[in-house]
Structure formats: C-alpha cells, structure tokens
C-alpha cells in the first residue's frame, strides 16, 4: 500500500515539475536564442543546419519533447482521461462486485407452506435465516413460484404439505416430507438443493430421534492460500485497461490526426517514425502508470486485493505489457487511412483477446484445446504474468515464459507496425 502511495506521489511530483518546467530535457544549446528587443535580429534564418543536429542525442531530445507535450495534452483532455482512467475503473467496480458475491454458494428459493403446524413455521423461519437459502418472500402461491422457476428467477421451490410437522398417530415427535421442485434444465441445482435440505433435516432429526451415525464427513479449511475469483478478475481487468491504452488510444486518435493533416505536417519535418512511435510509447506508459496505480488502490482498498508480489516487478511488467500491446494500436492506427478502416480491424484484433485471453472470463473455464490455442494470443501472457506477479507472489524471473512470449510478439508486431505506417 505504502509503495503505491509513493508511486503516486512520484508521478504527481514529476508531472507538476514538468508542468512548471523544472524538469527540462537536456538538448543541445549550441545555438541559444535569447530574447532581444528587435524582432528582425532574432531568428537566424538561412543558417545551415549542420550534421551535428542529427546526432542520436538530438533525436532523443525530439522524443522527450514530444512525450512531454503529449502527456501535457492528456492532462487537458477530459475524454482521454475518462477512457483511460475512469472507464476501466467502472469495469473494476462492476466485475469486482460480481466476483465478490460469487464466492459463497446460495440458492434462490420460494417456500410454499401449506401446513399450520408450529414446527413448519419455525422451520420456515430457520430457512429464512440460513445463509445457503435466499428465500423469495413475495412468492406465496405455487403457480406464481412455478412461473418464476421457468424464468430462472429462482432455483427451486420448497413445498411443505399440509400435514408437515404434525405428530403422526402413535408418534411423540413431529414428522413430514418436504418436496423440492426444480426445473428440468437445472438438474444439478435441483439435486444439490435436495441434498442440502436433507442435511438440514438431519440435524433436526437428531433432536427428536437419537441415532448414531457410523460414517460422517466433516469439512476443514485448508490453510494454503488459493486464488479467489477476484484475483482472476483483477488481472483480467488490468489486461482490459492495457488494451484500452494500447489499442483504442492510437486507433481512435491516429486516423483523426491523419484526417486533420497533423501527421502529414509532421512528415514535412525530419521526424522519424521511430521517434514518433517511441514518444507515443513513453506517453502511454506514463498514462498507464497513473491509471493502473489508481486501479491497484481501488482493488486493495475496496475489494481487499492482497498483493503478494513485488511492486517494482509489477510496474516493469505492466510497462512492458503496454509497450507490446501498444504496438498493435500503432500498427492498426498507423496503417488505417481513416476511421472506417481502423474500426473494423481493431475489433477483429481486440475481441478475440477480450474474450479468450482471460479479460472478463478466466481461461480455466474454457475447454483444454481452446486454452492451448489462446495461450498464444498477445494478451494472454500479459494477464497470466500479471496474476502470477500480483497475487501468486512470483518475481520477474519466474514469469520468464510469459516475458519470452511477449518479446516474440513485440518483435513481430513492431516489425509490422513500422512497415505499414502511413503519415497520411
């Protein structure tokens, strides 16, 4: 927790310092232009630009200035902030709440009580208080309950017949048989419900008829930490956020810049494609660091995420993930002449990853053959690696297979991106 706060603080300080110009990128000051009174004497138009101005140092200076200005623009652009920070956060809340509730099993049932016996009344009350049953109290008639059952609004109906809980002639204790009604297409739920109800009765029975049970089973909590479904959800959502930053960002922006002629204008300068790419990568890494830090804070504070790994490793891994996935955005946005080309292509690339790389659904629910195939999607190693680092306590060297696969994709994706890039 404290490390995250420190990261946020550093990010803020750097940002503020950049804003006020305290942090200046080192460039070549060979030709300082001082402010003079006479405007005509100011610029030295016609002076030959010497070869030195093309040194690598100067080229990197170009990258730093572009990164700085792009980051500044991000802080002024509410829409970009919404999509890179707030949007993933909304998903985090939605999916986080879903997976939080899913950890304990419960059944939605309707109870139709035809019996007037005091035992039946107290039994209904007991079910009401039970954690396993969620009793739908608005449903009182059988036909109403059955219509809800067919709509899957409830999992089953418990019917207590009129003689339920009455003392049978010659017996000193109450007895009866409850009936469980369930729908044909949810056999599993139905039989589980019956079993659960039977075991509820067993403890009741023991109160009236003393029997010894030769065989019993008890449950015991295993101390080993296992992954909660939120752990899967969270690493998946980080993957979603990386997709947003890496693909939707450039895919939405580049065609617009081409339409306005902004990129064409930049092409009249000696700006190189790699400089343009690198400054975009650094800018998105800064944006991503901020957005993902906020998600970590929310996950830890609201959803009790326990981070087992090392924050430094996680940060490095996330930035590498953003770089690799951003290559897809640079390739699509750089290739597309307009939005009409960019939108379908980005959907073709993004949707398989959204559904098959473990973004919204964990991959372990897929059939084995599908898992084997989807292992090799670009986003899969990112999400797997993030989960290993964040909640399974692994370090960077232990996610070597994931990093290797990411490196392979990085080379392929950027080779394509450089080849297909168009300035207009």
């Amino acid at each position, binding site marked *: 927790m404290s490390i995250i706060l420190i990261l946020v603080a550093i990010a803020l300080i750097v940002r503020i310092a950049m804003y006020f110009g305290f942090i200046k990128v080192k460039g070549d000051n060979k030709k300082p232009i001082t402010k003079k009174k006479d405007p005509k004497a100011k*610029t030295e138009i016609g002076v030959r630009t010497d070869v030195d101005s093309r040194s690598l140092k100067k080229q990197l200076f170009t990258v730093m200035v572009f990164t700085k200005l792009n980051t500044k623009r991000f802080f002024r652009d509410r829409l970009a902030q919404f999509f890179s920070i707030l949007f993933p956060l909304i998903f985090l809340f939605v999916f986080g709440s879903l997976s939080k509730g899913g950890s304990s099993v419960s059944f939605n049932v309707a109870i139709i009580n035809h019996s007037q016996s005091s035992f039946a009344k107290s039994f209904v009350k007991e079910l009401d208080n039970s954690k396993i049953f969620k009793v739908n109290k608005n449903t009182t008639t059988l036909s109403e309950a059955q219509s809800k059952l067919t709509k899957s609004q409830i999992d089953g109906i418990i019917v207590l017949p009129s003689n339920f809980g009455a003392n049978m002639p010659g017996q000193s204790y109450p007895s009866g048989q409850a009936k469980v009604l369930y729908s044909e297409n949810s056999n599993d739920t139905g039989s589980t419900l019956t079993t659960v109800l039977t075991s509820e009765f067993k403890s009741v029975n023991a109160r009236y008829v003393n029997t010894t049970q030769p065989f019993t089973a008890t449950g015991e909590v295993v101390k080993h930490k296992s992954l909660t479904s939120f752990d899967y959800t969270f690493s998946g959502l980080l993957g979603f956020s990386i997709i947003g930053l890496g693909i939707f960002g450039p895919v939405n922006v580049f065609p617009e810049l081409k339409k306005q002629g902004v990129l064409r*204008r930049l092409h009249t300068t000696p700006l190189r494609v790699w400089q343009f790419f690198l400054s975009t990568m650094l800018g998105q890494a800064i944006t991503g660091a901020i957005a993902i830090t906020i998600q970590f804070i929310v996950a830890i504070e609201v959803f009790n995420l326990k981070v087992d790994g090392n924050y430094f490793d996680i940060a490095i891994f996330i930035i590498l993930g953003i770089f690799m996935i951003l290559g897809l955005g640079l390739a699509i946005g750089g290739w597309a002449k307009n939005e009409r080309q960019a939108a379908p292509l980005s959907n073709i690339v993004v949707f398989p990853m959204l559904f098959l790389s473990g973004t919204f659904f964990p991959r372990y629910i897929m059939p084995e053959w599908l898992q084997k195939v989807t292992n090799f999607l670009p986003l899969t190693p990112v999400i797997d690696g993030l989960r290993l680092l964040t909640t399974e306590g692994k370090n960077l060297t232990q996610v070597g297979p994931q990093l290797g696969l990411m490196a392979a994709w990085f080379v392929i994706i950027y080779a394509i991106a450089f080849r297909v890039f168009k300035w207009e």
Partner: protein
Amino acid sequence: MKVKGLKKSYGNKPAVNGISFDVKKGEIFGILGPNGAGKTTTLEMIEGMREIDGGSIIIDGIDVAKNPRDVKYIIGVQPQAAAFQDKQRLTEIIEMFAAAYGERVDAISFLDEVQLSDHASNFVEELSGGQKQRLSIAAALVHSPKVFFLDEPTTGLDPQARRNLWELVQYVRDKGVTVIMTTHYMEEAQLLCDRVAIMDSGKIISLDTPKNLIQQLLKRGFTKKQAVEKADLEDVFIDLTGKALRD
C-alpha cells in the same frame, strides 16, 4: 534549386509530365495552375514527401531523391490547411516543431515575429483562420530553413489577413529565404512573385516574371473587354474597413 525532367504518374495517369525549372536564391517563385494541374504533386516531390518517378531535384546541392531527409532539414513547409492538434498552447507548438528538428528555441520570439506573442499561452483551437495561418508560418520557420514552401496560403482569409500574410512572406524573403508558393489568386501572384510558372496537365506552359508574361499577352494583341476601372470592390472594402488586422 534545380528541377530537371520531373515526372510522376498515378497508375497510367501522368500527374507531372517532365517539368524543368530553376529557382534562384532569395526569390519568390510562384507555381500557378488550375486544380489538377500537378502543382501540389510537384511541391510534394520537391519536399521529399512523395517518391519521384523520373527526373531530378537538387536543392542547395542535395539530391532530393537520394536524401529526402537531408532536404527536410533545410526546407520549411506550410501546408494548405494549418493542421494542429488542439489542447496545445502556441508556445508548445513552436517547441514541438523545433524539437522535430532536434532544436530548442525561444518560442515567444518566434510568435512575436508573426504578431502572436499576445496569444502565446492560448490553445491553438482558440485562434482565427488568419492567426492559425501565421502560426503555421512560424512553425515552418523554427529551424531557419533555406527554402520555404507555401501551398495556397491565403485561401479562405479575409482581405486584411491576406494583406498581412503578403507582408509576412515578403519579410521572410527579405531575410534571404527562397520562397516557393502556389496560389489561385492572380493578383497575389502578380504582387508577390518575382517569377511564376504556369502549369496545366502536368506541364509548365509558361515561365517568366509576371510583368513579362503580361507584356507577351499584350503583344499578341490582347485587349480587355472592359476598360480598367480606377478602383475595384476590394479597394472599397479596404477603404471602408481599414487595413488593420482583425483577429
């Protein structure tokens, strides 16, 4: 700058069909012609933005076909539409363009030169058309180029902004920069350009000073249908609204 037998075709259609011309240092050279004549294609090839199919272009001893990037360091380009990303301050745009050449500049002094220093910390989307055009010129000159290209710089500007831009172009030329421009306004070409090349269907059909071209036409016995009036509507407009620049 020497252009020799320059050719470019799209598919089977020749866009530029073997044109040759020289531009002297420090002159304002106009390229005129109807739409589709090949003006923009010609400019783009000279600027190193488009591949050259045939012929050669030498600017200040550099072969554009062989070293398009080297050429970019010594030319400044002001495209037809002044395109800037919004949410950027004027100073930032100047800094960014300077950085593209690996240079760091005092942005305010450049803005001062195009009378925009009052708006230095404004966002670019707050500027008027004329102001954007001036910013665009400043951005094209951040690296002290030797040759300056303008593509239809005054299209869509009001008469005041147009006059202001003319002065700016002359001012840049007076500093020793060679200017190459295209325009659809003949009075603009006549006023600004030292020499003009008139293009049609990918060829240069005439190249001379505006004065000589007019003389040649008159020699062929041309007379205007209407006697030249002593003033025109633009004179009326300027007389009524003044020459002061509107922003």
